[in-house]
């Protein structure tokens, strides 16, 4: 610790410019309805997996858009793709395809990373 007895707290703000938003872009391109999401959380409320875990598609959607990919990568695997979310979505977002595309995008980016 310096002579002042404290440091400058790091911010928790999300820096869009420095985050990798490739996954979001990939989904936007392949599933345009992703843009319609109003983050109401209807999907999370009805979610089968959400019944067992803290899994929330709403949160995942937001995180993907922000490019906070590391928080999403493993959480995504919990989805059972049962499709209830698609049925309750008030905006007609093809939520199921978003999960499938996101998984695919991560798989692809992982391969490139390897």
């Amino acid at each position, binding site marked *: 610790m*310096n*002579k*002042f*007895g*404290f*440091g*400058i*707290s790091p911010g928790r703000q999300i820096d869009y410019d420095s985050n990798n938003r490739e996954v979001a872009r990939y989904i936007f391109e392949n599933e345009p309805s992703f843009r319609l999401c109003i983050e109401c959380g209807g999907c999370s409320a009805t979610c089968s997996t959400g019944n067992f875990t803290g899994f929330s598609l709403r949160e995942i959607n937001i995180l993907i858009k922000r490019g906070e990919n590391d928080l999403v990568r493993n959480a995504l695997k919990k989805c059972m793709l049962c499709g209830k979310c698609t049925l309750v979505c008030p905006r007609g977002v093809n939520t199921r395809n978003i999960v499938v595309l996101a998984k695919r995008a991560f798989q692809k980016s992982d391969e490139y990373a390897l």
Partner: protein
Amino acid sequence: MKIEGKKVIWSEYQKEIADDNYFYVRSCIRQNFFPGSEVAFLRIMRDVLKKDVFEHPCHTTCSGIGYHGDVVPVETAMTVVARQFSLMTEAGYTNYVPSCITSFGLYTEILDTWHHFPEVEEKVRRQLKKATGREFKKPENLAHASDVIYKFRKEIAAKSKYRLINKETGEPLKVVDHIGCHYSKMFPSKGVGGAEYPYVLTGMIEEWGGQIVDYPERRHCCGFGFRQYLVQANRGFSIACSKEKFESMKPYQPDMIITNCPGCPMFLDRWQYVINEMEGKRYGQNGEGIPVFTYEEVAGLVLGYDPWDLGLQMHQTDCEPVLKKIGIEYSPEDKYNLAIIPSYSDSHKLINV
């Protein structure tokens, strides 16, 4: 800056500010860190504007910092405030002018609470009576000292010796305003211009020749956060907030910062020093810091007061760059000379006149 629409919005937010006969209460922080500012306020009010400003020798802290540091319960704070009101009532004044934003916020909050919960007011009256035997009337007009200066900004401009204009280029100085959070964030209608487009300092700057810079984090808190600064372990938060503001305003190359809060000018001033010590970073032009002023200091400079009478030597970040830009005559060697008798020796002690 697109200000047409904002002007419309601001115009809806004009607040009522009394004309004369003010009951003045001081600020704990300002008395310690910016004594020159409160002196300047009284000088301007009494010498320049010829107004009646009364200060009661028995007024105390409003306990606001203790209240927001959560060691003083709300009822205690209310009763302390009620005592201040009783001093005003006793002196025969109805226009209450606090020097401090935390106090201003606390008064506004308490008056609002009493308005909505008259039973609380009754209880406070009983408690004050029981504790001190005092009774009080609520102020008819509550305005922050910066509101009063804002009200008379044109009169000050008319009597000004300098304008906030760069002497070399003729361009208006680029000024960043920082409004104390408790000025209007709690009760937007109680502040000039409300919470989103606070106009109280902007009005002064524009009237005195400067140009206001609208930058993204304009409304961000300076980071005082009461307990967040008062305890050393928490100061990382406090400095981070100010840093956020500096980073955000830096691209606009501001010449100076003007504030109306007691703590903010001190933090914005000191944290520039600390950030430079920690990270070797400065935010002003030519590798200097950005000078931070209170509104009274700016008013005093505009009126041609001696910078060292205003207490600018107590700033950690040097103010000389701004003085030079405006072209203010001052003697650098007198900065730390404490033997000088103030130029306004007549109203030296500034006892109520």
